[in-house]
C-alpha cells in the first residue's frame, strides 16, 4: 500500500434510516470508509443494500421519511453533516458533485444544453461575460467528447449516451474534488457504456479529482475502480483493492457474489446464493448474512462482526477471521 495521505473523504459510522409506520428501515447502518485523492472507489452490492442511500447521504440529499441518524462525513476537513443548508448548497457541484442514476432523465427537456450547463456555472460563480461562459460550455462539451453544436440542442435530440455525457459535463463543470456516479451507465448499451465510462474516467483523471462509483454491475466495477467496498443489507462487509476483492475475497457473501457472476469467458454453471436478502425493518441479529451463509457458526447468530483490517488494506466483517 502507498503511503496514506490525508483522504479526500472520510465516512465514519454513517447511519441513515427511513422512518415508516412499522419502525425504522436501517438502510445504511454504521458504515465507515475513506476515499483518497485521485482514487476511484466503488460501492457495490445488490438492490436494497444501501449503496444509493449512502451516495445521497454524502450530498445531504436524503429526504424525509429518511434521515441521517448518526456518523461523520468529512470532505477535505469539512464536516458535511454539520453544515447549514445554504453552506451545503454552495459546496454541492463545486466540491462534491453527483451523476445520478438515470441521469439522462434529469435534464430539463425544454432547455437547451448550453443553458443547462451555464446554469450550473452561474449559480455558483455569479454572472459571467457571455463570451467567457460560452467558452466554458464549449470546453466542457469538448472534454466529454461532444461536438460544440450539442450546446444548441435539446435533450430529446440526443442519444442516451450523449445525454449521459452532458451530465458528466455538468457534474465536472466546477472542478469538484469528489464526483459521485450512481449507476452512471445502467440504461446504456454495452458499447456506449464502455465509451461513456472511459470518458468519465478520462475527465476524472484530468481534473485529478476522486470518484465514487456506485453500481450493481460487478463486471463494470472491475473495469473502473481501484478499490471498492461491498455492501450487504446496510453494512459494509468487505473493503479492499480490486484484486483483493475479486481474486482473494474473504467474506462468504463476496465469494458467492463473485462466483455467481456470468462471464463471457467462463461457461461453467454458476453457484446460486441461497435465500433472500433480509428486510431492513427487522434485520437478523448478529451477522446480517448469517441466514444465507454456508459457513455460519454459532456466534454469528448473535454477535455482530466488525469491519477489521485482516491484511494490508483488506478489511472484512466476518467472524471467520477473528483472532483467537
Amino acid at each position, binding site marked *: 500500500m502507498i503511503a496514506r495521505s490525508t483522504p479526500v473523504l472520510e465516512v465514519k459510522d454513517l447511519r441513515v434510516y427511513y422512518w415508516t409506520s412499522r419502525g425504522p428501515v436501517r438502510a445504511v447502518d454504521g458504515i465507515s470508509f475513506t476515499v483518497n485523492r485521485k482514487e476511484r472507489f466503488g460501492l457495490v452490492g445488490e438492490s436494497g443494500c444501501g449503496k444509493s442511500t449512502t451516495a445521497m447521504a454524502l450530498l445531504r440529499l436524503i429526504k424525509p421519511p429518511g434521515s441521517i441518524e448518526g456518523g461523520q462525513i468529512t470532505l477535505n476537513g469539512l464536516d458535511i453533516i454539520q453544515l447549514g443548508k445554504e453552506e451545503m448548497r454552495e459546496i454541492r457541484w463545486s466540491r462534491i458533485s453527483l451523476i445520478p442514476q438515470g441521469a439522462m432523465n434529469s435534464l430539463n427537456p425544454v432547455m437547451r444544453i448550453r443553458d443547462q450547463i451555464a446554469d450550473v456555472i452561474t449559480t455558483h460563480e455569479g454572472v459571467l461575460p457571455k463570451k467567457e461562459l460560452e467558452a466554458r460550455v464549449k470546453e466542457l462539451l469538448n472534454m466529454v467528447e461532444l461536438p460544440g453544436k450539442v450546446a444548441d440542442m435539446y435533450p430529446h435530440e440526443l442519444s442516451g449516451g450523449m445525454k449521459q455525457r452532458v451530465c458528466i459535463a455538468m457534474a465536472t463543470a466546477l472542478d469538484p474534488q469528489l464526483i459521485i456516479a450512481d449507476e452512471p451507465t445502467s440504461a446504456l448499451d454495452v458499447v456506449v457504456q464502455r465509451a461513456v465510462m472511459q470518458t468519465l474516467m478520462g475527465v476524472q483523471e484530468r481534473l485529478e479529482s476522486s470518484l465514487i462509483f456506485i453500481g*450493481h454491475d460487478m463486471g463494470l466495477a472491475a473495469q473502473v475502480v481501484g478499490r471498492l467496498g461491498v455492501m450487504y443489507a446496510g453494512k459494509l462487509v468487505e473493503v479492499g483493492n480490486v484484486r483483493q476483492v475479486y481474486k482473494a475475497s474473504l467474506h462468504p457473501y463476496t465469494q458467492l457474489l463473485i462466483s455467481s457472476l456470468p462471464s463471457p469467458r467462463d461457461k461453467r454453471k454458476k453457484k446460486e446464493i441461497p435465500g433472500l436478502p433480509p428486510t431492513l425493518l427487522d434485520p437478523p441479529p448478529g451477522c446480517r448474512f448469517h441466514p444465507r451463509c454456508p459457513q455460519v457458526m454459532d456466534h454469528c447468530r448473535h454477535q455482530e462482526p466488525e469491519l477489521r483490517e485482516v491484511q494490508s488494506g483488506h478489511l472484512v466483517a466476518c467472524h471467520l477471521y477473528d483472532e483467537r
Partner: protein
Amino acid sequence: MQSSLLEIRDLTKIYGGGLFNRDRTVALEGFSFTIPSDHPRITTIAGESGSGKTTLANLILGFLTPTSGEILYKGKNIWEMPKQEWFTFRREVQGIFQDPYGTYNPFYKVDNVFDMVIRKFKLARSRSEARRITEEALAVVGLQPDEILGKYPHQLSGGQRQRIMVARAFLLKPRLIVADEPVSMIDASLQVRILNILQRLKEEFSISFLYITHDLSTAYQISDDIFILYQGSVMEKGDIDGVMQNPRHPYTQLLVSSIPVPDPDVGWEGDLKLSSEDEMRTDTTGGCKFHRRCPHVMEICLKSPPPLYKVGQNQYASCYLYEEKKGSGNLWRTDYDKMSQQGG
C-alpha cells in the same frame, strides 16, 4: 411430417411508412430461423436497443402482425390458423417479460395469475386439482407454495415474481418459451437461479427457449446458439461458443470486447471513441447497416447488404471481409488475424 417446431421465413416488420408518412422504421428485416421439434434448444437473440429483438419476440408471440414473411408453427402459418389451432399455439408458445413488477395487477393476490390461465385453458377440473398443478409448477421453479400463494405482488421480491412468471408459463406445458430480457432487472445472485431454472426446463421438460437479451454474458451461460442483430438485420449467427470465443463480424467483435468482464485482470482493450453520429441512430439505406461504425469499411459495403458467409463449422457472418475471392483462397483469414491483433 413436421421437422420444425417453429419456422420463421424472411420476416420483416416496418413501423410507420404509410402513404403520407415518410418516417419508416425498419425494425426487423428478412429474418429467418428454425427451431427443430425433435430436440430442444436455447437460442439467444442478442442486440442493443433498437436492434429489433423485442419486435421479433412480439411477432413470434403473435402480438404484432408481420409486414412480410411468415411464422410457421408446426408447419402452419400462425396468421392463417383455424381458431382451435391458434388456441393451441397460444398455449404452447409462452412469453416471459423483462419487468417482473409491471406484469402483475397489484390489487390481486398472485394466485390470480395461475387461476386465470387454469380457467382460460381449462387445465383443471376441480379446485383441488387446480391447487395441485399450481403447487407442482411452483416446485419446479424452486418456490414453496405456502411462501407464495395468498400473497400480493408487492410482498414478493423481483426474483420471486419472475420465477412465478416462469411457473405460470410452465403450467401450460409449453413447447417454446420466448423470454424477453427475463433477468435484466434482477440482482446478480438471483439471476443465476433463474437462468439455471430455464436450463432445467429445457433439459428435463424439453422446452425450447428464445432468450432475448442485450447481455452476452448470461447468453453465453445458457444458450446453444445465438443471433446477433443490429438495426434489424442479422450480423452474425451460429454456435454460441464459436461466436463468443471467435467473433467474426466487426460488430460482434466490438460487442464482445466491450463486455465488462468481472475480472480486474481482463480489462477493456484500448480506448473506444464513438463519434456523436455513431450514437445517434442512423438508418443507412442500401449497404451494410454497420458500415458507419465499421473500422474495416470497404467500398462494396456501401452498395449492397452483405449476405451471410460461412465463417466456421456452424457460424455465419454478414460481412464482405469473408467473401471468398477467386484464387486468393483464405486471404481474408490473415487479414482478420492482423485486425484482431490491433484489438477489435
